[in-house]
């Protein structure tokens, strides 16, 4: 009892001695000069390491975009590969500044776990990948199947909901790493691999014979994937959120990494000029440089470029834009006005 009291007294003494730290992520990162970014441990199209150890993919590029906005240098990122299991703890603890690791935005994660989702980089939904040999055409035929899942994901929960509401049974086999679940599907340990559809396409190209496998038509959930920051630090939240909006807006206004210099010189469109920081300095209010958005587009490209390069037509995944097209082209990507 005495010891407890002592500890409490000491804790109280310490709290008097140290100032509050709240909301200092931005200052810390700027002072450190490097962005600590949590990414996936190997998911083609989103974040994976190539043969020489460089990270590529949408999620990795988003980290680079934030670094470009912060420092004017997209290379100043330290990537931390995380399993699905580790990711939120790493963010909560402060191990990373931003988590950009195909994480689904849900209410429980937003309100109860000390995190805030800053937006949606990819609108996704959960699907199923099966071997063609099984002859399955629809997810409704999966009663009694063995299903491979990644531990610690929303897909674990959705899967259970879906099978229960449809009165079907399943056996879950849960792995920590996506590589391992793909390997398990290939070897026949499970009949079905379930995950976000984008991930399924990514997993498929990692298989020895991708053409033997097919993604079933059903999408059983909404999976808005986006970058996450710690709760209660609105300054930092704004930087990450508006980095994403700058990427999206740049595509809407037709600014690309190729033409951004020319646009900056010649464009008379007031929206373009405001975005690139030519007329108004939004950067100052975020403690950033005036040309923050220019640096993002110049070094990383706009949202469309990022998409096509990593998961779209220019990539082995060949995913359609679908929900991820601009709002005026039938999609959901929509940036608030830069005004």
């Amino acid at each position: 009892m005495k010891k407890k009291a002592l500890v409490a007294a000491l804790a109280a003494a310490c709290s008097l001695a140290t100032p509050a730290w709240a909301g200092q992520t931005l200052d810390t990162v700027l002072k450190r000069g490097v962005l600590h970014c949590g990414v996936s441990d190997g998911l083609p199209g989103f974040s994976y390491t190539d043969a020489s150890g460089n990270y590529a993919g949408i999620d990795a590029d988003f980290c680079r975009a934030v670094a470009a906005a912060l420092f004017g240098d997209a290379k100043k990122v330290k990537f931390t590969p995380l399993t699905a299991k580790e990711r939120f703890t790493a963010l909560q603890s402060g191990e990373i500044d931003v988590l950009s690791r195909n994480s689904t935005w849900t209410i429980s994660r937003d309100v109860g776990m000390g995190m805030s989702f800053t937006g949606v980089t990819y609108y996704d939904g959960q699907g199923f990948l099966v071997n063609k040999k099984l002859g399955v055409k629809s997810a409704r035929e999966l009663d009694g199947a063995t299903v491979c899942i990644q531990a610690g994901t929303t897909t674990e929960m959705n899967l259970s909901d879906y099978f229960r509401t449809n009165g079907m049974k399943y056996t879950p086999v849960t792995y920590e790493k996506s590589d391992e679940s793909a390997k398990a599907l290939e070897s026949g340990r499970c009949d079905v691999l379930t995950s976000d559809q984008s991930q399924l396409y990514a997993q498929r190209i990692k298989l020895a014979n991708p053409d033997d496998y097919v993604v079933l038509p059903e999408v059983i959930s909404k999976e808005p994937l986006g970058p996450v920051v710690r709760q209660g630090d609105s300054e930092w939240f704004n930087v990450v959120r508006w980095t994403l909006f700058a990427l999206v807006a740049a595509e809407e206004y037709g600014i690309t990494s190729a033409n951004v210099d020319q646009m900056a010189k010649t464009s008379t469109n007031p929206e373009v000029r405001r975005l690139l920081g030519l007329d108004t300095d939004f950067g100052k209010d975020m403690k950033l440089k005036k040309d923050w958005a220019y640096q993002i587009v110049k070094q990383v490209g706009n949202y469309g470029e990022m998409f096509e390069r990593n998961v779209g037509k220019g990539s082995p995944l060949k995913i359609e834009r679908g929900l991820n097209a601009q709002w005026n082209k039938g999609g959901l990507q929509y940036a608030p006005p830069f005004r």
Partner: protein
Amino acid sequence: MTPGETLRGGGPRRWLYDPKIRALAAQILTVLAIALFAGWIVHNTVHNLTVRGIASGFGFLKNPAGFGILQTLIDYRETDSFARVFVIGLLNTLLVAALGIVFATVLGFLVGIGRLAENALIRGLSALYVETFRNVPPLLQIFFWYFAVLRAMPSPRQSHEFLGAFFLNIRGLYVPRPIPAEGFAPIVLALGIALAAVIILRRWARRRQEHTGEPFSTGRVALLLLFGLPLAARLIFGAPFTWELPQLQGFNFRGGWVLLPELVALTVALSLYTAAFIAETVRAGIQSVPRGQIEAAIALGLTPRQRLRLIVLPQAMRVIIPPLTSQYLNLTKNSSLGAAIGYPDLVGLFAGTVLNQTGQAIETIAMTMAVYLLISLTISLVMNWYNRRMALVER
């Protein structure tokens, strides 16, 4: 001045050299430093949790889990609470630890005795076994069995079939499940009676030997009792079980019991790894028995089996048990590596999935560590008790 005074040193600084005061000061400083450090950690954590708006406390345990689990030893539905998931993870850990301990002990004793066998070939093979298995990391061995060996099994539709009731495929080993029938209770009763009779018989035999010196071989009578009584019950009351056979339905076999490849790989790897260490312990234990004891036993005319059972093993056990305990503890802790191959043990399930679904890192990790600490303390307490019973009583 007497020499004593010089040694102690005079003046007001004498207390500086007083060993009692020094000891007290050292202890107070240590406690203070540790308390300060703990206070600092607690303060940081509390502060970080509040700043980041992370809920704390154990209330989350009541919430429904909402996900499926591969292997549950007790009934589980997705709507059950996280607390139940914790129990399931714990039971899975205990299961693999218990299986591993049994197999590792049996194999370890065999190999350990084999290392001292007269037969040179057996000796060599045992040594080869020990050196191979104890020098390779357990995680690698688990991966090897799981990803290289068990992954080579056929798909459910091409299962290896034995007797039309056992099926082996990549999803595991399917065996018939016994369902208690009418004859179940009488047979259990008969077995109980037989066991009690055997124990009484053995006591009587020992007492008789102590009094008269005449040995009485209980083996055959015991065998007769243990098999005869249940057999009689079976003949009178009918079959104790009906068997539920596994059958291929759709994607998988249904019915029967299944031994999952995750469990098999983990058990096999841990047993083989730990058995190598146990073998060395057993060898050292047997070698510690003085040569004279064995020579005396030979002189008394004991058979080799009797020598081993009555003279060597009881004495060797004293040396073997303490290191054996720590091997059991290591095995239990190593079972947490099952998380890497998807076995739903405490670490994989609770400190993994539950941690991630709830975000309660501190609580879940603390609970997990507490369980392992508790297991390790319990095992060492039990072993210490046994050790004390076995300890040499010198007259």
